[in-house]
């Protein structure tokens, strides 16, 4: 039967119960993370929680989308613009809203 402990990882160093633990890191282990140390016999493996990474990624994508919408809206409004981009811009806005909402639904 294996044992799971709460742990953190910074710069490839896993820490649990306030001591560094020599463990195989199953994620990248570069950025600071919280996760789980799995002990099974003399084997120790660290598994980071990836949801914070995903949440940050989604927030970045939403920011990019919103900035794109702002730029496109401005371009579409100028007199020399061919116009007619209202529907695609509206679609981008919908996608941005959906993407933003998805970060609250991470499993």
């Amino acid at each position, binding site marked *: 039967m294996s044992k799971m402990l709460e742990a953190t990882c910074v710069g490839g160093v896993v820490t649990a119960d306030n*001591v560094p633990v020599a463990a195989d890191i199953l994620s990248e282990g570069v950025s600071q993370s919280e996760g789980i140390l799995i002990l099974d016999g*003399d084997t120790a493996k660290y598994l980071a929680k990836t949801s914070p990474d995903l949440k940050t990624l989604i927030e970045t994508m939403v920011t990019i989308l919103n900035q794109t919408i702002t730029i496109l809206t401005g371009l579409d409004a100028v007199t020399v613009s061919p116009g007619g981009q209202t529907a695609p811009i509206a679609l981008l806005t919908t996608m941005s809203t959906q993407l933003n909402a998805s970060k609250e639904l991470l499993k």
Partner: protein
Amino acid sequence: MRVKCFHGYFIFSETKVGQISDFIARYGLDIVAKDDYYTFSDLEDAPDYSLTGATFLSTVAVETFEGKPWEVFEANGMVYNFSTGLIVPIDSVIETVQILTSKNHFIANGLILPGSLTAEGLRVRDYSAWFSRDTLRFTYSEVNCV
């Protein structure tokens, strides 16, 4: 009453009701129930894992390991010294023990302290013993040394 010493961890079990309480009353040892057996109260909270450098009961673990408490003891080379109530490295035990061979069992004077040195220079790590209320002696059916 049966006494098993697994890698310096103790398990007491009754073959008749009341043996444990009699033993406790006679010798004043602090023995408590744990899971489906009895053990010394100092071992009651023995973790089922150890992390190198982290506190493990009264000592510091030297290995990262997960398993039954006695397996963790073995992985860390520790034994329980019931005289001092401390978990100690097996190599640090300085007591000696004389184990006599009888027909089909072994005899020693009292309960063997795990890690004790035999006349052959080996250390007692595991044993299985029976305590008789009639003779007040321990009879050892198995003694393993390292």
